[in-house]
């Protein structure tokens, strides 16, 4: 199934080749979880502070949930502004 993986700020280095400006379009297996997708791209779990799926925050427990077709997973290290 198709999903988008978006890695921002210092996590952008973990994007696979062929990504366009922080976004990778991926074909993943059914049942792939947030953590398993991030693990597959060597994104350190300790750096994943802000984790959104379709813009909605995913707390630590929700990160073991499976992604669905068309989901957009966006991840940042600790960041702030204002």
């Amino acid at each position, binding site marked *: 199934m198709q999903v988008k993986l978006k890695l921002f700020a*210092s996590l952008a280095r973990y994007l696979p080749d062929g990504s366009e400006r922080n976004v990778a379009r991926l074909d993943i297996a059914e049942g792939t979880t947030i953590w398993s997708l991030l693990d597959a791209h060597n994104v350190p779990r300790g750096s994943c502070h802000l984790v959104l799926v379709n813009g909605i*925050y995913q707390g630590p427990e929700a990160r073991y949930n499976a992604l669905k077709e068309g989901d957009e997973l966006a991840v940042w290290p600790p960041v702030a502004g204002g």
Partner: protein
Amino acid sequence: MGWTGKILRIDLSKGTVKTEPLNMDWADKYLGQRGLASKYLVEEIDPKTDPLGPDNKVIFATGPLTGTCASTGGRYSVITKGPLTGAIACSNSGGYFGAEMKFAGWDMVIVEGAAAKPVYLTIFDDDVQIRDAGDIWGKSVWETDKWIKAAHQDPMIHVATIGVSGENAVLYSCVVNDLHRAAGRSGVGAVLGSKNLKAVAIRGTGGVSVKDPKEFLKATKAGKKVLKDNAVTGQGLPTYGTQVLMNVINEAGAMPTRNGRDVQFESAGDISAEAMAEPRRSDGHPNLLTNQACFGCTIACGRISKIDETHYTVQNKPEYWHASGGLEYEAAWALGSATGVKDLEALTYANFICNEQGLDPISFGATVGAAMELYEDGVITSETTGGIELKFGSAEALTRCVELTGKAEGFGKELGMGSARLTAKYGRPELSMTVKSQEFPAYDPRGIQGMGLTYATSNRGACHLRSYTVASEILGIPEKTDPLATEGKAGLVKAFQDATAAVDSSGLCVFTTFAWTLEDIAPQVDAACKGDWSVEKMLEVGERIWNMERIFNNKAGFTAKDDRLPERLMKDAAKTGPAKGLVATVDKMLPEYYDLRGWTSEGVPTNETLERLAV
């Protein structure tokens, strides 16, 4: 003891300079900077006075930690009655000007009256002079800074000045210091212009004493370690600046776009921190050159950028080819998302002009967004705009508008009124995205409900810096709350408002609070200042300040009816993102907020509250 204990009082009508001791009883109750200067203001002016009349006063104020070795201890504020809002105004700036004021020996400079002809002020330690500004009236911020340093043969002078926009009463003109740091909001620059005061130039050769030097060094060193070890203040902000929020807020569906028609901007990535760091296709260099720190700051979130020399905005204009203040998040949002413009170089140019001519980029960009909607709705035409095709997404229109507004020429004069007056003039007031006539910044309350209450109740008109609940609702600092929920937000907003008022009165930067709590700040204040400065006392001071500001606004004529958001946010649901189908629901939160504040249902502090806080 943190404070110098001395203030300057300048009467421009009489041409007099007086010194007086700082009221230490008030310092104990209001700390410094925002709180203490606001106390002086509310005691000395009629709340109903004309903001641009000679009876208004403007105060440049430092905090007790300004000029010390505390991290970020370089802040100062400009306090006055704001012409954009008619409410109390307090605009906070970094750079080096504030510390220099302390080194010259002054906690505050109170300016009253109005000069008969343009003047500027020099404060060289105890030597204070009102000088003729005939040579710099009509000059930009950058030209004025250069002229003053050359005229007095001292490159170490720090200058706070207005641009041409402030001289011409653009209602969101700033006071800019150190070329590109600004006391930005509410039109404080126009107040200087109304007094014929072009600039304040300061050089100080003294220092700042503290109550207990050993304890102060210990407390400030501990504070710096917390900032360094924190991933946000130690790595995120120095590397990416505030602009890292562009993608965050857009993904969260809370990015006000095209004057609030939408809550997500399809081109946010093109104007983000990540885009600023990418090599340009045109010349191979990134827009962002480096970061920069204000006085004493160990975070260094400032952006220094350079525009592509071949870009249409600066072709054959070498005066804009140098490195200068780059885009921060709020500016990038206002100049970009609010107008639908995705050209990063054009936004950087517009930001340069805002610095050069002293414009608040938030209110300017949001006003252009409102004007674009008027244009697209056919309410105004190219005849009105002087030939500008004012369509959403047009970089050319944006950059032409900033040039005109900076100099208050042509259609720029209308844009300089701000969106509330502009849209009212053309019979479409509902298109102004303002509270108390001040444009709201880069967070859509439909997607971050707490920010709706923040904007509605902000004492200086819509503003994110009075209670930055984004930290909790989106970023999880200090703990994560649901941005789409209203439950618990009244208490959250009040807590942020009170704590922020205390920090704004200390001389420290509010960005420290991404890592520090008042548990980190109070020991630094306590070691510097006479008295016992506990966390509890800081919070009480913050709450007292908030109520004092509210009372001033109530006396100025504001009521609970002014604690409301633009109709669009309350009636037109978000079209996309997590907030799809939702509107801002401030009405649900306001009664609880008033109750927590100890105010009546009409938003008036009760006698019991006033007695408790000894306002």
